[in-house]
């Protein structure tokens, strides 16, 4: 290599690799959910009284036990969207990159979920987080960084949401860490939820997706309607403590001890199988 050639390569390298952060992994496109994986948490939703494997604390369990699916009869709740730490679990999503066309800097990676067509921004430009007392939303405020080719996302400013669609609440104090990991045409999405108010230990969830070469995200219009006549004042459907008749269904249908179905951090770990053998049948 001649000296002038080396100089030209050095200059080229400085142009290519200096300056703002460039995308290190390409996640752009439509990703289809793997329906065979954790099917109950996908489109159909979980069974009532199934909190197994969730590290919820006693307060969250009590809250879940009072939950009634009749809240979906309330117009204000019919179009309530899945929070960003759950929305990918429901179905497919699209990701795309927002580039500053002048500087070529990656400003944000954006996502749209099939579920309710919600969109979110994962800010890649280093912008600061809003004030802790600023508005919290279903999507929260997300910032991203590259760990090799893995996209690591940290989300705060979430308003109250849920870990499972059967009343298991996640508080607005939660911090969510996600990793998007691509393996060719497959993508793994991992979610790590730290909730100091409703979890005994952090909650961890994995989901897998397949790249859809010509994929699309369908429209998901939602319009609230009055479906049943409801009391006008002070009504919210729920079960009084000890009066929820559906809590035992999951345990009975799957022959799982009721205590195990009620979840808790211990139910996440393999050694809990030893305790299962000691628990009474449902």
């Amino acid at each position, binding site marked *: 290599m001649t000296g002038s050639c080396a100089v030209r390569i050095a200059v080229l390298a400085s142009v290519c690799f200096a300056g703002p952060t460039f995308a290190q992994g390409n996640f752009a496109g439509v990703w289809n959910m793997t329906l065979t994986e954790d099917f109950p948490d996908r489109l159909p939703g979980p069974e009532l009284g199934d909190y197994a494997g969730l590290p919820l604390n006693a307060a969250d369990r*009590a809250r879940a036990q009072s939950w009634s699916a009749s809240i979906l009869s309330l117009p204000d709740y019919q179009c309530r969207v899945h929070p960003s730490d759950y929305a990918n679990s429901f179905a497919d999503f699209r990701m795309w990159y927002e580039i500053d066309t002048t500087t070529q800097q990656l400003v944000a990676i954006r996502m749209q979920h099939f579920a309710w067509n919600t969109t979110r921004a994962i800010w890649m430009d280093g912008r600061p987080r809003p004030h802790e007392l600023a508005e919290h939303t279903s999507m929260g405020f997300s910032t991203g960084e590259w760990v090799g080719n893995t996209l690591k996302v940290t989300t705060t400013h979430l308003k109250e949401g849920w870990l499972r669609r059967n009343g298991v609440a996640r508080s607005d104090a939660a911090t969510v860490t996600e990793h998007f990991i691509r393996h060719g045409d497959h993508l793994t999405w991992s979610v790590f939820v730290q909730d100091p108010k409703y979890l005994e230990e952090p909650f961890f969830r994995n989901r897998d997706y397949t790249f859809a070469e010509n994929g699309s995200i369908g429209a998901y219009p939602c319009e609230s309607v009055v479906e049943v006549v409801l009391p006008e004042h*002070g009504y919210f459907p729920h079960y*009084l403590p000890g009066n929820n008749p559906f809590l035992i269904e999951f345990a009975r249908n799957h022959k799982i001890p009721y205590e195990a179905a009620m979840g808790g951090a211990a139910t996440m770990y393999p050694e809990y199988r030893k305790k299962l053998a000691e628990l009474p049948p449902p």
Partner: protein
Amino acid sequence: MKHSIQAGFAALVGLGICGAGAAQQPQNFDAVQIQAIPVRDNVYMLVGSGGNITMQVGADGILIVDTQYAPLSEKIVAAIRAISPKPIHYIVNTHHHGDHTGGNVGLRAAGNTVSGGNMAGAIRDSGVGAAIVAHENVLVRLSSATGPQALASAGWPTSTFFGDKKELYYNGEGIEIIHLPAAHTDGDSIVFFRRSDVIAAGDVYVTTSYPFIDTASGGSYQGFVSALERLVDIIIPVYGQDGGTLVVPGHGRVSNLGDVLNYREMVIVVGDRIKNMIEAGMTLEQVRAAKPTVDYDPVYGVRAGAADRFIEATYQSLSAPAGDAR
């Protein structure tokens, strides 16, 4: 027991610390900083100590909702001046508690009342300070208070209203000051900025604690639920339960429909449980022991005594004979 809770509330009111976000120990106001958080367009939330202040600024001047504590007035004025040099024309009080009205005197003195022409002489105090707008019951409560914590008359409302609401048009938008009867107190108002699409809710909605239902000042559980439902009726989200109408709570963070619905859910669920226990013949002590707030305590029961006060006020309201919600 009714007398004990009323005495307790009265003591808190006298100390000016009965707001949901108020500390129960003497505060070192020297350490308090006033932070201005943009809400939308020309509306800001000022956070320091005590109730949140909502500020609307524009070509006409400045309108603020509530005033926190008296020792903070200079800092609050400085925070306002960092955003706008315009005069403070209006102060609106959402209710009479000291953590929302304590700064009335100082902030009023930093402004002036809108007047002109032959009215300048007719409105004798137009040069003295800003107009203080509130429901009539706020004036009644403030002017009947006694003791060292009572607010000086210079901080009392100068423009009160009866009935459902008072309307203003200021800085290019309609403003509705809507009275919500017998909720947190008997003088509650929310302030709806119609073009900005922002509501200053006062203490009928907070994100930091259970409702503080001041039964000694005319508040009631039933009125509190009605107040939350009125809020929900006004709020229109962009989609789902996000965005659209934003709410500045009496204490805590900027909120949207989903947050207010979650709060209303908690209030109704706990109230239903207590009502069921009352119908089963349980005493207040038995209701407390049954922990009807247990599932919401990590979120709203962090402040010592907040759950007990909410349970007691709800028990009182729901035990009262029909026609006497307290």
